[in-house]
């Protein structure tokens, strides 16, 4: 047995789960376990209590909202996101991002909430959540609060969650964002990205490729999912063509803040962010045009 000793609890209600977090300041939540269990096995984390939240009711649902958006429970598995007609119809960007998460067996267990709360800077779903301007619901001992995804990610593996809090759902606002794009570079299918970009372009009025606003988010290119406001500003109100997309890519490459690590150099990541931004912007425009 590889992990350090811990007490295992499997609460049946949210209140009970929060009570478990309250009882032990070194407790950790276990959802899909696809990131946490390797960390336990390598003893990079040594929680004294493991709170298995898989038996909590009501957290594995995907519900439509009246404005055309979705509320997605924290325990929804990546496989269920991909299989959901609602997700494909209302948040196609999220479906595209989920398809890049690990492999089938990983997606069968891994959860939306777990991916967001783990906050790996190279992960797909956090970047998609920021690009989609999602709002996260957090429940704690005293109260329930909401936080925009863009404020949730604080640093590598660090979020705005307090020790006694739990992420319960993510809301993606409507209307459906049809001008979306998603691209990443990884050495093998299923690996974390070396770098990637998620984008949304919202048209001002009917018309080919004319944008009023854009949101571009890089991942694997900074300490958190990284918004690219300079590149997005360049697109505002402009008809998108290859030259403009290239220019946005150049700005994105300059404004991202990648680091060197064992997988790639910061320079290579910067180059990728430029190329992938150009591709994503063109994909956004093409989808708006079709």
């Amino acid at each position, binding site marked *: *047995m590889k*992990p350090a000793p811990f007490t295992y609890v499997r609460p049946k209600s949210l209140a009970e789960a929060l009570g478990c977090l309250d009882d032990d300041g070194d407790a950790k939540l276990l959802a899909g*376990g696809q990131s946490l*269990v390797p960390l336990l*096995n390598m003893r990079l984390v040594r929680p004294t209590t*493991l709170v*298995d939240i*898989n038996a909590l009711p009501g957290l594995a649902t995907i519900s439509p909202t009246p404005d055309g958006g979705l509320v997605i429970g924290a325990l929804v598995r990546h496989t269920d996101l991909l299989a959901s007609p609602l997700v494909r119809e209302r948040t196609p960007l999220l479906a595209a991002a989920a398809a890049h998460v690990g492999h089938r067996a990983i997606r069968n267990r891994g959860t939306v909430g777990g991916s967001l709360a783990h906050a790996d800077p190279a992960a797909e779903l956090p970047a998609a959540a920021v690009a989609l301007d999602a709002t996260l619901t957090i429940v704690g001992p005293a109260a329930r609060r909401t936080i925009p995804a863009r404020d949730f990610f604080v640093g590598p593996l660090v979020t705005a969650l307090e020790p006694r809090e739990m992420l319960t759902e993510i809301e993606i606002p409507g209307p459906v964002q049809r001008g979306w794009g998603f691209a990443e570079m990884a050495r093998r299918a299923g690996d974390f990205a070396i770098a990637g970009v998620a984008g949304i372009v919202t048209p001002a009025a009917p018309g080919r490729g004319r944008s009023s606003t854009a949101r571009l988010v890089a991942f694997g290119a900074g300490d958190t999912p990284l918004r690219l406001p300079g590149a997005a500003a360049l697109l505002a109100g402009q008809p998108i063509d290859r030259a403009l997309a290239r220019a946005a890519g150049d700005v994105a490459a300059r404004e991202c803040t990648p680091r060197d690590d064992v997988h790639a150099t910061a320079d290579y990541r910067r180059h990728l962010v430029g190329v992938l931004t150009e591709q994503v912007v063109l994909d956004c425009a093409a989808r708006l045009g079709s």
Partner: protein
Amino acid sequence: MSVALRLTVNSRTVERTVSARRSLAEFLREDLGLTGTHVGCEHGVCGACTVLVDGRSARSCLLLAAQLDGATVTTIEGLTPGDGLSPLQAAFRDCAALQCGFCTPGMIVTAHELLAEDRAPTRDAIREALSGNLCMCTGYVNIVRAVERAAAALRGERA
């Protein structure tokens, strides 16, 4: 800390008390003697330990046995007929899709999930489905071919 478990493994009810730290892979191999589930990387990368949990593929090295109270687990032993070979197993043999055999149980379990959902997968779909299972000696060409042959056999065609 110990946890009392009651679960179904390969259609049989199993009751055991296990350490909370025991992985499903250890539980299957060491407590139940089901050594067909192989343990390779032990951090979810290689796919050798893949089993079905409630009908879906999962890495048994990334699950705690304690999580599986009430669950239904199927291992490679559970996918093997009492007599002879399953269509997937026969296809792996016929296509020379195994050399050392270490990755084979995980390959078969993963391919079983694919073929349960899609009896006529494209070659790309097969490659995508198997992308999380690493083979270090046979090579993937014959493995993909074996899954195609098994799919044809399950459709009642000769491949």
